[in-house]
Structure formats: C-alpha cells, structure tokens
C-alpha cells in the first residue's frame, strides 16, 4: 500500500497556496458533507475517503476526524457498512436510501451557502 504522503498533489501556484488555509478550514468544519459527497460516487472505506478528499482537495482529514463521523452516520441510518468479499480488512460504507436524500439535500444547501457568501463578500 502506498503511503498517503506519496499521493500529495502538486500545488499549482501561489494563489492556490494562499487559498489553502480557507479550503482547509471549510473542509474540516464541513467534513460530513465531503464524506457524504465522496460516498455518493461509490462505496468506500475510511482509508479510501481520506485518500479521495486528499487527492481532490489537497486536505488531509486525520483518521480521528473521519471514523467517528462514519460511525455516527451509520448509527443515524444514513450509512450502512459491510465488509467486501474476500477483504475483511476494510469496511466499505454506502449511503442508504434515506442517506442519499439527506446527502443530496445537505450538499445543495452547502453549495447555496457558499455561493451566497461569495455573492455577499464580492459586493
């Protein structure tokens, strides 16, 4: 297995670098949204989710911030977990039917909020 540090995406330019602290904060504060968004694409284990967010956003969500969210969402019936056939090492999480609706609704609201804030701040 490759180490997470080996996946580090290149930081394109200094503007992107300046943005990183805000992106970091937004993603960490709203990690449930980003986790659910990743799971809308396909079932994943905690490791895959962390890797996916890291590759897409260059933000490393620590294990201690991701796994409790997965367990809580599972308890709330938003996710269900199962071990993959032949791989008892990783527990793959999927969104339930209810979870898909909640995820979509939360993602829409999140995007609207970000757009609204962008509009307000640019006036």
């Amino acid at each position, binding site marked *: *297995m490759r*180490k*997470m540090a080996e996946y580090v995406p290149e930081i394109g330019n200094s503007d992107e670098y300046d943005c990183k602290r805000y992106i970091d904060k937004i993603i960490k504060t709203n990690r449930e949204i980003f986790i659910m968004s990743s799971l809308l694409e396909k079932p994943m*284990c*905690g*490791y895959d989710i962390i890797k996916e967010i890291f590759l897409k956003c260059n933000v490393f969500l*620590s*294990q*201690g*911030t991701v*796994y*409790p*969210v997965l*367990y*809580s969402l599972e308890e709330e019936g938003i996710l269900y977990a199962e071990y993959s056939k032949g791989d*008892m*090492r*990783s*527990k793959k999480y999927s969104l339930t039917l209810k979870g898909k609706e909640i995820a979509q609704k939360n993602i829409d609201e999140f995007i609207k909020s970000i757009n609204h804030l962008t509009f307000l701040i640019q006036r």
Partner: protein
Amino acid sequence: MQESAVLGLGKLMEAEIIPGSVILVTGAEGTLKSTLVFGLISDILGNSGEHGLYVTLEQSKESHLKNMDGLGIKKRDELHIFDYRDMRREWMDQEPDLLEATKDVIEYYQEKYGNLAVFALDSLNALYTISDKADPRKSMYDFFSYLREEELISFLIQEMPNFRRNPLSFDLDRPERFLADGTIELGLMEGRSGVKRYIQILKMRAAKHAMEKHQLIADECGLKILGQIY
C-alpha cells in the same frame, strides 16, 4: 438491576471525582478494570444528560457491550464507545498517531454533543505497544494536560503484570504514575477461603479516601464493594 453500577463506592471515597482529573485504573488481567470503568462512568453520568466516551484499542465495541450486559451494567445512550479496530486494520502499514487521533475523536464528540463530561481509554498498554512515539514521556505529559484542560473526568486503564508471578516485569518508571491525579488499583488476593478481588485507591487528589484494600465482587446486578479484606 441495582441503583448504582458500583455499589459501595462511598466506603472508599467521601467526595466525587472532580472534573479535570485523570485517573489511572491499574491491575492484572481479570481484575475487572474495564467493568469498573464502565460502572463508574455510568454512575457519573447518572441522569445528568451529560455524555461519556469510551475509547477501546483492544476489545471490540460488541465484545465490551456483551461483557457489560452479562454483569448487569446497562450502557447508557449517553455513553459512546469508539473502537479503533477498523482504523487500525485499514491503516496497518502506516499506523496513525493514536494520541492525536484520540484528541480528534474527543473533539468530535464534544462538538457533536456539547457536554462530554467523561472519557476513558482502554488501554494505555495497547497505546504504548502500537505507538511509535520517540518520546512517550513528553507525549503522555501533553495528553494528560490536554485531558485536564478539557475538564474531562478521564479514566486511563493500564494493565499491570502480576507481581508475584513476574516481579521484574513492572516498570516503575512509567510517567503516567506520576502524572495521574488518582490511581485505583484492582487486584487478586489469595487466602484460605480462595481468591478474592480487591479494589484500593492509592491516590486521589482533592478527595478524602480510604487506603485499605476492599473486596470487589461482580454479579449479574453489577459491581459491589464490600468491607476491608485484611
């Protein structure tokens, strides 16, 4: 079901454990460390509406629940059990910093419930075994400080070897013994009438407590602390 998960604690302590205290619960295997901590958390939470977090590195959540159920200790809805099994399996080749991960887990539950009052870690031995910290003393000092700053009542479970069987196996220089605000020791004593479990408070800052060993028994109704055993 008895009214308290640990009946007779008043025989050992006059006052309650104050928030911000870090208590070591030590003992050999089979001395009911996890059960005692579950019971204490259950009693501390009572009907306060506050929440507790039990982090386990050894047994699974399901196995803990089964044991507690067998001993008549009901898991309160406000007590959350977090087990590291999935995380450790998936990150086998790059073991995460478990002290930092534990802080993140605590922060998550604090944020989610707003009133996390009690924390337990089962066990320090497993943490030391897994962790590749270069300086465990410094890390442990920082971790204890963090728990105090968060005003949590914290129970850290530590398995001790049986002295009689292996007197050289115990490292007296372990930092947590000096750092802790309290130490509760659990053990086994052999007598003419057989083997008895005991509980002894070796240290408890800011609380009057007995120093004697008291008998500890477990049945289907929970734990009971009886009289002195010597």
